[in-house]
C-alpha cells in the first residue's frame, strides 16, 4: 500500500500502461518536457521518449483527430486536453468521429482513444479553466465518461480506460489533484470495473450521489448530518456513462430519499437524468422528490464568487433538510 496524491496516482497509472502496452502513447500540449501544466505526466518523457510521450502542436482538434488515426492503425493514444474549457475545439472530432466510428463500421473498427481532461472549479482560476462539460459528452452515444474521486481509483481507472476498446473521456477533478490517499498497486479490488458505482458510506435515511470533485463534499455533508442524528448513504458514481443505476436504485430503495450533487449546471445535467430514472424505477420507494444540487445556469462565474456557485456542504445539507421534511 502506497500513499500518493491523485495527480501522482494518474502518473503512476500512465507509467504502468506505457510499460505494459508498447502501443500506448500519450499526446498533448506541454505534456512532455514540462510534464503537463499540472505535472500529471511528469518524468514520463524521460522514461519512454518523445515517440511515446508526444508534445503536440497547439491544436485540440488535431490532437484528437490524429489520435483517432493512430487508434485506427492499432495504437492506444491517451490525449491530454490542457483545461476543460479548451476541449471545445476538439468537440467535433470527439462527437462526430470518435464516438461514431465503431457504430458506422458496424463494429469492424475500434478507436480505443482516452481523452484526459482536468475539470471543475474551486481553484480560483480565470475564465475557461473551471468548467464541467461532462453532460455534453455523456449525451453522445459511443463515448464512455468516467471520473475518479480518490487516488486508488485514479491509479486503476486510468489503466482500465486505456485497456477499454471504446473511447473513454477521463475527467480528472483538478481541485483534488493534491488529495492524498492510499493506493493498492497490486490489487484493483473494488475498482475492477471502472464503470460501476461504489457505496462509499452506508446509511439509512437518505442517499447522496456524487462523483469526482464532489465526493469529499458529499462525505463531509453526510458526516455533518450525523450530528443531527441522520444516517446518510453516499455513492461515488465513478462512471457517468454508463451510469450505474442499479447501485443508485438499490440505495434509494433502502433510504427512500435521493440528493444528486455535481458542479455542472443543474439544468440539463446528469442529475436530471438520475432523478428521472430513479423516479421511473423506484417511484413507490421515494419518500420525497429527488433533489439536485448543482451549478446555476450561467457561464462559470469569476473566481471571487465561485464559492457561491459551487455545491458545498451547506447546500447539500439544505437539500437534505428539504428532502427529510417530506
Amino acid at each position, binding site marked *: 500500500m502506497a500513499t500518493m496524491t491523485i495527480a501522482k496516482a494518474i502518473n503512476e497509472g500512465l507509467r504502468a500502461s506505457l510499460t505494459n502496452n508498447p502501443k500506448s502513447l500519450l499526446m498533448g500540449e506541454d505534456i512532455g518536457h514540462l510534464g503537463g501544466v499540472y505535472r500529471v505526466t511528469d518524468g514520463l518523457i524521460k522514461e519512454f521518449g518523445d515517440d511515446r510521450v508526444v508534445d503536440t502542436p497547439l491544436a485540440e482538434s488535431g490532437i484528437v483527430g490524429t489520435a483517432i488515426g493512430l487508434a485506427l492503425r492499432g495504437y492506444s*493514444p491517451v490525449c491530454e486536453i490542457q483545461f476543460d474549457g479548451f476541449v471545445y475545439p476538439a468537440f467535433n472530432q470527439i462527437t462526430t468521429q470518435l464516438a461514431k466510428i465503431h457504430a458506422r463500421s458496424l463494429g469492424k473498427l475500434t478507436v480505443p482513444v482516452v481523452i484526459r481532461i482536468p475539470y471543475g472549479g474551486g481553484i480560483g482560476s480565470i475564465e475557461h479553466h473551471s468548467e464541467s462539460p461532462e453532460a455534453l459528452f455523456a449525451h453522445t452515444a459511443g463515448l464512455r465518461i468516467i471520473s475518479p474521486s480518490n487516488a486508488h481509483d485514479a491509479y486503476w481507472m486510468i489503466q482500465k480506460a486505456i485497456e477499454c476498446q471504446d473511447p473513454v473521456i477521463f475527467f480528472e477533478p483538478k481541485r483534488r489533484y493534491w488529495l492524498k490517499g492510499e493506493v493498492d498497486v497490486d490489487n484493483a479490488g473494488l475498482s475492477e470495473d471502472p464503470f460501476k458505482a461504489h457505496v462509499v458510506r452506508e446509511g439509512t435515511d437518505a442517499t447522496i450521489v456524487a462523483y469526482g470533485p464532489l465526493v469529499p463534499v458529499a462525505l463531509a455533508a453526510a458526516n455533518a448530518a450525523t450530528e443531527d442524528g441522520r444516517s446518510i448513504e453516499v455513492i461515488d458514481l465513478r462512471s457517468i456513462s454508463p451510469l450505474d443505476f442499479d447501485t443508485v436504485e438499490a440505495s434509494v430503495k433502502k433510504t427512500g430519499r435521493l440528493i444528486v450533487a455535481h458542479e455542472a449546471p443543474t439544468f440539463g445535467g446528469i442529475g436530471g437524468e438520475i432523478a428521472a430514472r430513479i423516479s421511473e424505477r423506484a417511484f413507490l420507494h421515494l419518500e420525497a422528490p429527488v433533489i439536485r444540487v448543482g451549478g446555476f445556469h450561467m457561464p462559470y462565474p469569476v473566481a471571487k464568487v465561485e464559492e457561491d456557485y459551487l455545491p458545498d456542504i451547506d447546500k447539500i445539507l439544505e437539500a437534505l433538510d428539504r428532502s427529510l421534511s417530506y
Partner: protein
Amino acid sequence: MGSTQLPPGTEETLAATTAAAAAPGEPVEMVQLLGPDGTLGSDPVFSDYAKRIDPEKLRVFYTDMARIRRFDQEATALQRQGELALWVPLTGQEAAQIGSAHASQSQDYIFPTYREHGVALVRNVDLAELLKQFRGVSNGGWDPRENNFHLYTLVLAAQTLHAVGYAMGIQRDQKLAAADSTDPKAAVIAYFGDGASSEGDVHESMVFAASYNAPVVFFCQNNHWAISVPTEVQTKVPLANRAKGYGFPGIRVDGNDAIAVHAVTEWALEHAREGRGPVLIEAYTYRVGAHTTADDPTKYRESAEEAAWREKDPLDRLEKYLRTEGLADEAFFDQVKADGDELAKYVRSTTHGLEVPDIRDAFASVYAEQHPLIAEELAWFEEYSAGFESDQEAAN
C-alpha cells in the same frame, strides 16, 4: 519550396505556381502531360514517372474512368427513381481519382471524403456496397481493412486528421518492426475538396503532418465549387501554394489528365514512403454536373463554364491519345462500353436487393464492450416488439 525535398527540375515546373501566389487571379502553371487535344507533352520531372505507365496500364486507366462514369450515371438514375436518398456525382473528376488511386499500392491506406467512387473502384470496393450509405441501409457499407479504403466521411475535413494520425502510426510501426522486416513501406492518402480546404482540420492536419514528417499525401480535388460557392471564396492563392507555408511540397496538376495525375501522385507517394514527409497535390478539375442530386447548379453558374470544361474532358482526351497512338482499337472501346453496361446492370440489380438492417444491429455496435444502457434499451425494445406479436396472435 525546399529544393532538397524535390527532385531536380521540379523547381522550374513549379516556379510559375509560386509566382502566382503574388498575383491572385493570374493563370497558374500546372503539371500537364496529356493535353485536351490528346497529345502528350513533356515535363522535366514527371515525364520520367509517366514513362512507367505502359500501354496496358493506360487502357486500364481508360476502362476504369469509363466504368466509373457509367456507374455514376446509373446511380444518378437510381436516385431519380427513388432508389437512393441522395447521390454525389463525380463526372468530370474521373482522371483525378483513377489516376491517383492507381498510383497507390495495396499497403497504402486511403481516407476518402464522399465523392471518391473512382478511388473505391480501383481499391476493389464492391460498388453495390458503396451504395448502401446512399440507400440508407448503412452508414458505411464495406470493411475498410479489406482494401485499405476507409469509410466515407460526411463531416468535411475530419478525415484529414485521421489520415495524419494513421501515417504517424505507420512511422511507429516501422520503429517497432524487427530489423529484418520485409514489410513494404506504406503511406496514406487523404482526399478532400477545395471547399473543405477552408476547414480548420485541414490546417491542423498539415501542421501535424509537417511537425512529424508524416508519410501522408494530401490530395485536394479542386473541382471549382463547394456546392454553390466558388473556390475564389475559399482561397486567395492557388491551393497548392499553401503547402509552402507548412514547409512541404505542393503541386498543382491538371486533374483531367490521368497520366499527369498518376505521375505526380506516384512521385508524392514515393516521397512519403521514403520518409521525406508530406506532399499536397491540388488536382485542378471540374465538377461537371450538380454537387448532389439535391443541387441545382443553374442557380449559381453559367452553362458556358460547364461547356468550356467539357472541352477538357478526361475520357475524351485519353481516348484520342489511345486512338492516335494506335494503343487501342474499336473492339477495345466496344468492350469498355459493354463492361460499363454490365457494371450498371449489376449495380442496379444488387441495389434493389440490399438488405434493410435490423435496428438490433445498431444496438450491437454502439460500443465495443458491454454497456448496461444499451442492454436495458434493447431489452425494452424486444419486449415492446414482442407486445405487437402477442397482439397479433390474440387477433388471430
